[in-house]
């Protein structure tokens, strides 16, 4: 076999392989899309089922052969869910706790992160390391004593109990400190030379530059209030102090299982709606915050 012949053979072979590979590639694409779309449908199905169930009549919901689209839209289920679940009161409580705790938490986080990122003081590194160390301990360990503390302070069934114990998040301080450190120190020194106060510098320079992180913290904190269940259940057993999740779980559970399911699903949909709204408009910040934190709320 001479050299020239061998070369053309290889080229032909390559062409052959690449045609096969192309078919293979298309097949792989089809399988990939089929898999992803199937999984997406599985992920979405509970939401779909929640919404159509919330609009069915009770008779249709109990039909032996399920319907995948309501025969008749019973919008009244939503009104009844609001009434039966006392959702308005729950929303008010949750919004109050969410807004106040987010605001106070942001102030505390910004001040601490600023101190750690920009100021020099004795024991800074040791203090920061100690703070980080507390992150390893599961929250359940704090809950027992915090319950006793809150009880001794006379805070049971009060907003103080729902807000104050969780105002400081070491993780948020850490996150914001990292962000602040990226801002050149020269800016701060220049501001000092100009006689700008720390607070003004924070407000005019640091906060605008760290805004995405602050928005992430705000959203995660609000979601935390919206989803918290265990702590509110412990410290606020009076019905007018319930937060949304506690009210939801208690209002529609009957021992005999004779609940009106469409109304229950309507209540679940109402409670889920604000979260979806936030997700729809602020997805970028949530995903950025979550990928760095790994914590829910």
């Amino acid at each position, binding site marked *: 076999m001479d050299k020239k012949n061998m070369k053309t053979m290889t080229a032909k072979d390559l062409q052959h392989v690449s045609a096969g590979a192309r078919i293979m590639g298309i097949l792989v694409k089809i399988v*990939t899309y089929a898999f992803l779309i199937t999984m997406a449908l599985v992920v979405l199905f509970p939401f779909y089922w929640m919404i159509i*169930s919330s609009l069915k009549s009770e008779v249709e919901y*109990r039909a032996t052969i399920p319907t995948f689209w309501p025969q008749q839209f019973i919008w009244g289920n939503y009104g009844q869910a609001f009434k039966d679940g006392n959702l308005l009161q729950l929303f008010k409580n949750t919004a109050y706790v969410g807004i106040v705790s987010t605001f106070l938490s942001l102030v505390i986080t910004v001040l601490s992160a600023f101190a750690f990122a920009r*100021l020099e003081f004795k024991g800074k590194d040791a203090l920061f390391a100690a703070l980080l160390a507390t992150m390893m301990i599961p929250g359940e360990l704090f809950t*027992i004593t915090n319950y006793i503390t809150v009880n001794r302070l006379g805070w049971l069934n009060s907003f103080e109990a729902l807000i104050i114990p969780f105002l*400081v998040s070491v993780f948020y301080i850490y996150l914001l400190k990292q962000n602040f450190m990226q801002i050149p120190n020269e800016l701060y020194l220049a501001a000092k030379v100009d006689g700008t106060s720390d607070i003004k510098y924070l407000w005019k320079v640091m906060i605008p530059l760290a805004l995405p992180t602050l928005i992430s913290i705000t959203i995660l904190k609000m979601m935390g209030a919206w989803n918290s269940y265990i702590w509110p259940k412990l410290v606020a057993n009076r019905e007018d102090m319930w937060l949304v999740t506690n009210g939801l779980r208690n209002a529609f559970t009957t021992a005999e299982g004779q609940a009106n399911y469409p109304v229950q699903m309507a209540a679940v949909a109402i409670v889920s709606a604000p979260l979806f709204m936030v*997700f729809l408009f602020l997805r970028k910040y949530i*995903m950025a915050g979550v990928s760095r934190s790994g914590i829910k709320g």
Partner: protein
Amino acid sequence: MVESKHQWKAWLYLAPAIILLLVFTVWPIINTVAMAFQNGYNALAAKRGASFDIGIQNFIDVLGYGSFLKNLLNTMLLCVATVPLSTMLALLIAVALNSIKPMQKFLQTIFFLPYVTNSIAIGMVFAAMFNIIGLRGGGSMADTWGIVNNFLMLLGFEPINWINQGSDYWANIVVMVVYIVWNALPFKILILLGGLQSINKQYYDAARVDGTARRRVLTRITVPLLSPMLAYVIITGFIGGFKEYSSIVGIFGETMGPPAAAGRLNTMVGFIYDSLATSSQGKASAAALILFGIILVVTMINLQVSKKRVHY
């Protein structure tokens, strides 16, 4: 940097955080350990001036309870079943998502959707999907079998009593696994996809030039280069799994089990709160320390394994 005479300023800014942390984080750590080692500690009695012997009776009591061991078993079972399953599924989805262009952003958004839900609220939806209404005739007839059973029957299977009265323990566990995996996917997909997108494309180009088979590319390039992220989602998955509680409340309610079998699916965290409710803070503290110990050991093991397997 800044003049040291302004040190007081730093402490002023840090004061709110430090005061709150001392009261609600540092003190609880000390107090929980203290309570755990006082035999039969009870906060109400302590307030009245009672004193307790120092010892390890709380730990002995907790470990001696049948219910604690059952709760521990439930927790471990759910962990062992859900962490590998959700990690594998998330890896497949992330790799698939990373390999496509059209619809990638759209599908990514859909897969993240379960993250922004209230785990109790959506638990109630899952419960509705598995729920049988009007079961009668010794379990042979019902008004509604529930949509999951409807699908099973469509495929020619017998309907299963998943969560109702008289349901099997393993059926309950399957429901919990499905729900927990569904809930755990978004975070894992987000992290793994982020990791995949940061892998240097040159590795894949080199593999293509060499004509490496797709499966080999996955096991020899993608997984090793993704191993730090994989280790991260597995470790956080185990930590979260050992603290499982509210997803069970979502499906079964505060009874933590189907009717007539209340507490059957209770977990470690549930045990701690139950002890608190009966005012046995000493035992609750001991259980919390045991939970912390288990999480610590599991995390150490995970880190040891990943030391050998993870390529940085």
